[in-house]
């Protein structure tokens, strides 16, 4: 069977192959799951072109790529608006469209949001690594040779049966913030008892600015000081000298990892362990917001229970289905 290929004319900014939920079973060896940050938009793009929701697709970040189709394809773009053009004509988001052999799809800089997902009917067929096609750039593995797209690269695509003209209902799309302010859910823990009551309130009531020193490994936040309980300030020496130091432990994805006074939200390409505390954790239901926010955006944190976070995730999962489709 011949593989329809896509040729990379311009790579964009760290455009990577991802799948969902990424790499499972190797976290304990030091491989984080990887996968798309905004997995809501990612799954909708796949559903539009008739793929399984988690199939491999492209994550375009801030500046999109230019790609030439070597064979006819059905594609869909979901997420931030990168003013995409196919053969020079504007392409709508949240909709499946047909691309002809030889046509060029060109994405620009993100006008809204930060990440745009490109799914292709048949899905991207790079060799899986430890059961996943997700790219883990820090570990040089997965995706296309373990790296972001490069000029002249060729992306293999499987045979697909996509149908153009399918659209995601307005009510089933994530609403990308237009005022650069986001309400982000957090759950308390695992190490919230290291932060005193005033420190916890300060975290929940303050504005936090997303730092430019952020990537798929972690999002750094800028905001007020943290204050600690006795547990952090009066502890055995093997915990380390800073109040935010603890004995090395594993890091949950979404953990707000406190390094000294700098909180870092750990994303899907995180380092898997370390010696800093995690007072709060961002649950899966808020990851689409992380994926669509950009440096300088403001986060307000909203404390939710674990049950509530799980319910919100189920609500998003329910929208990642054929029920969200209408005809254009």
């Amino acid at each position, binding site marked *: 069977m011949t593989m329809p290929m896509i040729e990379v004319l311009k790579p964009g900014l760290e455009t990577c192959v991802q799948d969902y939920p990424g790499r499972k079973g190797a976290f304990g*060896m030091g491989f984080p799951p990887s996968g798309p940050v905004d997995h809501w938009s990612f799954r909708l793009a796949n559903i539009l072109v008739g793929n399984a929701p988690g199939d491999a697709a492209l994550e375009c970040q801030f500046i999109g790529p230019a790609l030439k189709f070597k064979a006819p394809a059905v594609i869909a773009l979901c997420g931030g608006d990168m003013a995409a053009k196919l053969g020079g004509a504007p392409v709508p988001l949240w909709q499946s469209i047909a691309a002809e052999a030889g046509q060029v799809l060109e994405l620009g800089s993100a006008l809204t949001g930060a990440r745009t997902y490109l799914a292709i009917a048949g899905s991207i067929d790079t060799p899986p690594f430890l059961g996943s096609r997700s790219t883990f750039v820090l570990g040089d593995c997965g995706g296309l040779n373990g790296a972001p797209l490069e000029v002249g690269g060729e992306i293999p695509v499987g045979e697909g049966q996509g149908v153009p003209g399918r659209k995601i209902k307005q009510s089933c799309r994530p609403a990308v913030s237009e005022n650069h302010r986001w309400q982000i859910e957090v759950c308390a823990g695992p190490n919230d008892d290291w932060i005193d009551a005033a420190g916890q309130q300060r975290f929940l009531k303050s504005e936090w600015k997303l730092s430019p020193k952020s990537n798929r490994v972690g999002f750094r936040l800028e905001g007020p000081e943290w204050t600690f309980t006795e547990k952090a300030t009066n502890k055995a020496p093997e915990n380390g000298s800073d109040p935010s130091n603890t004995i090395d432990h594993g890091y949950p994805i979404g953990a707000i990892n406190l390094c000294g006074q700098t909180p870092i939200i750990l994303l899907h390409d995180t380092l898997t362990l370390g010696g800093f505390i995690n007072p709060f954790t961002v649950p*899966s239901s808020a990851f689409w917001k992380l994926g669509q926010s950009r440096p300088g955006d403001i986060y307000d944190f909203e404390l939710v229970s674990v049950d509530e976070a*799980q319910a919100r995730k189920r609500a998003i999962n329910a929208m990642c289905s054929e029920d969200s489709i209408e005809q254009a």
Partner: protein
Amino acid sequence: MIYDEPKFLPGGDRFIEMELGDELNFDLNFLVHSLSAKIREAEIAGLIELLPNMASIVISYDPDLISFADLKSEILSHYRNMGSLEDMELLSPIYYIPVLYCDHVTRACWEDYCAKITEKEYDSDILVKLNDLDGYAQLARIHSGTEYWVAALGFYPGLASLIALDPRCRLTAPKYNPPRTWTAKGTIGYGGSVTCVYPANTPGGYQMIGHTPVPVCDIEQSLPAFKQDLALLRPGDRVRFFPVGREEYDYIESRVTAGDYVHNVAHYAKFSIRAYHEWLGTLDMKERF
């Protein structure tokens, strides 16, 4: 201490941090890995994977398949059925790793750091002073004078945190501040009371005391030891470093490059907590290698 009741701390909608105690303690780490093995064997539906560490286990789960409360009670029942720590014994292979101490590779890395980032004392000099040793030879003798226990795996793929099983060989070392932007693959690092072999070219903060040509992680899986698995070491395994000269180092490096290097492993070795405790009781802590 090891807690009477382990703590189950939520980490968002899909993780739990199970804390078994709050210190760096071999018995506690042994308990963490024995329990992790039991949990894996139980194949609990909805449990995705485990990140065992020094004193805790981070558990990832699918809340649509198992609730926090049910997962907690299932894990607690395995914990309570573990039996006495003294009776525990596990298969613990010993990996022999050749090391060229105070080598050319890490010296070049240190010189580069001094030139580009900040002046700092040579790493081995720091360890010699801080640990009251009489020179590089004693540093090598002590570092290679004990078996190490793989207490945790991760941070970066294939990176094992190793702790000395012979308390007379425990060293301490500060970390680089600021950290290095690169460290050569195969560097033998020491930070706090933990030693490691860098699995790839990565940033790093541990003092660099030597270098091995033998890889501990290989995503290409080219050498025979990596055919089954791309990371050499697992928690509960042991490592023994042995000093080599430049000639032997170059020979081993050539075998690794040729792709036919055979890792030296005692796969039959078992570890008994009782025997280890008895041996600890016989040691004179004033003795030094």
